[in-house]
């Protein structure tokens, strides 16, 4: 993984010292909240309902075991003993004291981490495929490009005050696991049409959720790889010049793309790019190799193929182990190895939360069963990317002891949920208790596995941090005359077949919503063509009629 050089470390250390002074001046009364707020936000420090919240950047979700232990230590020492992994592959602490934040940042800097650009109208942490480097369908490791984007965008002076926040996602595989179509810019590695041995990028632009959800459109079908940064810069320049600053609800790039139309937007980007494409941002082979050198494969052992062994575990007599292998273990590109997904969605727990003890165990397991690396997924789970397949039963037993072996990856209880009204100052309704209740009501593992792969996303307000628009089942919390109600949406997807869910009908009370979800699921099970027809395919084929009939009594 990427290691800081002298410049990286100096930048981060100097930022810690600067913020320490700013905090001291705030606490002494020398500066007020109006002056301090933009300073703290530049360091990832929000004010939520009950406390400050510190968001720590985890570039493209990749952590070393040393870093994860530090995150666990910070949670225990300065917070309430847990952290929350977010949909941008970051971690959030919900209870830090202001006076402790400089010390937290100093501790983070000691392991090459920070909270810079995790807030504010700047380019945020690039997200990526959580299977980067190990997926069988990977064309090229996207983390090299994520790291190049990180270095280009960090403290980029031209883009420190954009009209609104800006999010980029990169995928290097055939299948999109990085939800690139719901980002401001989505970068897809694709083969060069003139030389399939080389690769470049498809550039998508204008995706996003919130109150105006939009699927990204293709801005450029093929971009040679050496031009990645100059093309991104051209997009950012057009957005920075024309994006609306008069209305924060219309300030994201998706609004600009929608207003201009993709053809006009593209023309402006191409014109801007023509002026800078062959300049200093051109990616040389030497620069690519410098960064790519940090992402060399670890020293894998030469092992026999163990796919048959893994399949036997999946179908074996030990159903607890079998279910876990079926849903939480993914085939690795190297023979004899497996990718293990660790669910942070055990029954009755807030999605995405992990205690200090759990983080420390996972760090130990990353060392003992892999090469000391852990990946955070945008679905709020963790990955051990390099586990020898023969050791899967042993690893399962170790995870089980800490409630980390829930066999529900990609299943209906693998719920993405925003913090909602339990934490968030913007929310209208609670999200986490709904997720918990769904997990408690739908708890038959045979039934959950019979439902197959199915995404369920919950947001506590229209800002859509729980990405409800792209859940196969989406739930949006709303406020109706002071009471929490929930809209139910069906048909969303964040993957290659990205689509926005549509509202099924009138909203449900908090007491009704879980039963409504259960009815949606039973309607699907009763009417699907076969157990092989996925939920999303059924919704697209059958429409909303069967669901409305069961839930509202009329189609």
């Amino acid at each position, binding site marked *: 993984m990427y290691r800081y050089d002298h410049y990286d470390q100096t930048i981060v250390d100097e930022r810690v010292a600067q913020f320490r002074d700013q905090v001291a001046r705030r606490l002494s009364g020398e500066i007020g909240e109006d002056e301090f707020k933009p300073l703290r936000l530049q360091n990832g420090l929000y004010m939520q309902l009950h406390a*400050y919240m510190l968001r720590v950047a985890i570039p493209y979700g990749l952590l070393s075991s040393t870093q994860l232990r530090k995150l666990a230590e910070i949670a225990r020492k300065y917070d309430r003993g*847990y952290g929350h992994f977010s949909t941008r592959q970051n971690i959030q602490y919900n209870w830090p004291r202001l006076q402790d934040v400089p010390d937290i940042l100093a501790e983070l800097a000691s392991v090459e981490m920070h909270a810079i650009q995790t807030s504010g109208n700047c380019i945020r942490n690039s997200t990526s495929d959580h299977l980067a480097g190990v997926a069988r369908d990977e064309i090229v490791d996207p983390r090299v490009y994520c790291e190049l984007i990180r270095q280009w965008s960090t403290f980029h002076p031209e883009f420190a005050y954009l009209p609104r926040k800006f999010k980029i996602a990169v995928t290097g595989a055939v299948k999109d696991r990085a939800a690139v179509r719901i980002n401001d810019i989505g970068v897809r590695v694709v083969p060069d049409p003139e030389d399939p041995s080389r690769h470049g990028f498809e550039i998508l632009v204008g995706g996003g959720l919130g109150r105006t959800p939009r699927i990204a459109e293709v801005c450029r079908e093929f971009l040679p790889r050496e031009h990645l940064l100059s093309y991104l810069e051209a997009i950012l320049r057009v957005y920075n010049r024309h994006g609306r600053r008069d209305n924060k609800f219309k300030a994201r790039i998706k609004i600009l793309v929608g207003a201009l139309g993709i053809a006009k937007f593209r023309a402006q980007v191409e014109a801007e790019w023509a002026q800078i494409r062959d300049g200093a941002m051109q990616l040389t082979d030497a620069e690519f190799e410098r960064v790519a050198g940090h992402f060399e494969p670890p020293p894998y052992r030469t092992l026999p193929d163990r796919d048959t062994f893994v399949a036997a575990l999946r179908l074996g007599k030990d159903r607890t182990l079998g279910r876990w292998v079926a849903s939480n273990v993914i085939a690795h590109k190297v023979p004899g190895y497996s990718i293990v997904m660790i669910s942070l969605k055990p029954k009755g727990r807030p999605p995405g939360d992990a205690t200090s003890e759990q983080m420390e165990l996972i760090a130990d397991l990353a060392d003992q069963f892999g090469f000391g690396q852990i990946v955070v997924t945008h679905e709020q789970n963790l990955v051990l990317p390099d586990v020898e397949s023969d050791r899967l039963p042993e690893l399962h037993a170790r995870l089980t002891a800490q409630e980390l072996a829930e066999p529900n990856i990609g299943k209906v209880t693998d719920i993405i949920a925003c913090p909602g009204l339990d934490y968030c100052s913007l*929310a209208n309704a609670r999200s986490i208790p709904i997720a918990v209740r769904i997990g408690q009501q739908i708890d038959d593992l045979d039934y959950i596995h019979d439902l197959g792969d199915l995404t369920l996303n919950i947001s506590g307000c229209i800002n859509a941090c729980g990405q409800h628009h792209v859940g196969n089942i989406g739930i949006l919390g709303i406020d109706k005359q002071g009471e929490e109600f929930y809209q139910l949406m069906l048909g969303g997807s964040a993957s290659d077949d990205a689509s926005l869910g549509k509202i099924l009908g009138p909203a449900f009370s908090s007491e009704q919503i879980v039963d409504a979800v259960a009815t949606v699921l039973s309607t699907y099970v009763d009417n699907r063509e076969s157990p092989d027809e996925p939920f999303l395919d059924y919704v697209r084929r059958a429409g909303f009629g069967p669901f409305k009939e069961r839930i509202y009594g009329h189609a």
Partner: protein
Amino acid sequence: MTLWMITGNATADGAPIYLQTNGRWTRRLAEGLAVSSEEQRDRLLAEAKAAERIVCDAYVIDVRQGARGQLEATSLRERIRAEGPTLTLLGAAPLRAAAIA
């Protein structure tokens, strides 16, 4: 009769705090000062906004007498804010007390 209270988040740790008499602040909504006069509400809010070393972004909330006579926030948001998350927190460690004034 509408009752109001002045609240904000403590600068020290972001905890919700509520204005009492004589410019003091409490972490318990039930111990805050409820006022029914618009003039008094606005004056207290101005004083609270001036106390920004202690409190961030002071504002007014509606409160009412609860079933047992205690003061409580009218809105769900403010009730959750006053009483804490409605779910069981994963970590068992209690939040350390911090002086707010």
